[in-house]
């Protein structure tokens, strides 16, 4: 199973609303990944995004599902700015997953 999530419809031209990101993460992304399904995040029509939005969207899937998330999350029509922010989140989430420390939140 693979689903496509069109961000423009839900997050607007500039993706910064973390409540939207959280809702998508909990209601769409996590359930599909938990069944080893694929998720395509389609950024067509989205000009920019904050790091906070992207973090709220994908950090927990990356932490929770690890390799499955890395294999099954896809990004479509993400412009260079958005790609850069997604890459930053990928890097620090993979980085932190190697040395999990501190108290659970």
């Amino acid at each position: 199973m693979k689903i496509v999530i069109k961000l423009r419809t839900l997050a607007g031209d500039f993706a910064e609303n973390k409540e939207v990101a959280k809702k998508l993460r909990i209601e769409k992304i996590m359930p599909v990944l938990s069944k080893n399904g694929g998720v395509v995040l389609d950024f067509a029509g989205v000009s920019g995004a904050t790091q906070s939005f992207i973090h709220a969207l994908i950090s927990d899937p990356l932490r929770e599902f690890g390799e499955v998330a890395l294999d099954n999350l896809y990004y479509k029509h993400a412009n260079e700015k958005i790609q850069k922010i997604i890459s930053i989140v990928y890097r620090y989430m993979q980085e932190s997953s190697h040395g999990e420390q501190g108290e659970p939140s």
Partner: protein
Amino acid sequence: MKIHFSNQESLRNFLRFVASLDLSNPAKLEISTHEKWVTVHPANLVIAAALALRVGKEHAKITGKVPQTGIYLDRMGLYQFTQTPSPFRYNKKEPAGRFVPLTVIKTASDQSRFIADMVPLLHLSEDHATVVKYIIGELVRNVLEHSLAPNGAVVAAQYFKKTNRVSIGICDTGIGITKSMWRHWQPATDLDALFLAMTPGISGTTRREGGTAENAGAGLFFIKSIAKITRSYFAIYSGGSAYTLLKYDKRVKGFPRLYADPRRDPHNETRNAPAFAGTLVAVDVSLKITPEFTALLTSIGNVYDAAIRERRRAKYREPKFL
């Protein structure tokens, strides 16, 4: 409480402005200005408006003689936060300028509407607009998530043609940064709390590397870094402490070097400011030397990455862009 706007308010003079605040008698607010000329930064306006919101319009007033340049206070909407009627009469539909008047944001939806509707008033290029949206998006989100401010965030922005820069101020009268950081970090002083808040990877919501599902501890570090890379000022004031990032020397070629530790940046600080129950963040963004946003993100991301690294990974995986 008393706030005085001088004839030379700017982020360069921010600590002097902070030192001049009289935050005693928190039940009422008096705002005064220089008699002959008033120049204010959005930072000055948002703290005045935020404190006026806290005491209530009926307990806030603008006193004394306000010079003609005080018309700017009216255009930015400050009189509406006080009981004082504006003495200025003018055609508000005249070409205005490029400013975002004082606006109160209480919810994430308010924030989204604000960014969609107000930022275009600054008439910026797409790349510059992205930077401004990014800054406002992150700073307002910080307030909504961490400040527990019942009155929300007060935001204002201004484009200055002469210096080709955008100045942004955001203020709340919530719990302040020290209390926000307390649960997981127990900062010894308000200034330590400011340093923690600006350090990449440190969030008030957890001690865990990588943050929680909703917070990574990156927001203020990103904004301060944008200011540094564009060789602009950044200021933060909460509790009894304030910090101003100074302009990076323009004679140095290339990107300024970013540091995870805010104490390494050229800055002014004070731990003897009047105790402000809330948080004020302000930033200037020079549009003359704003690099490509992606290049800016690359630089910031590299430092962020290094800062949270506890040991090197054997191999990174990359996202699959279609």
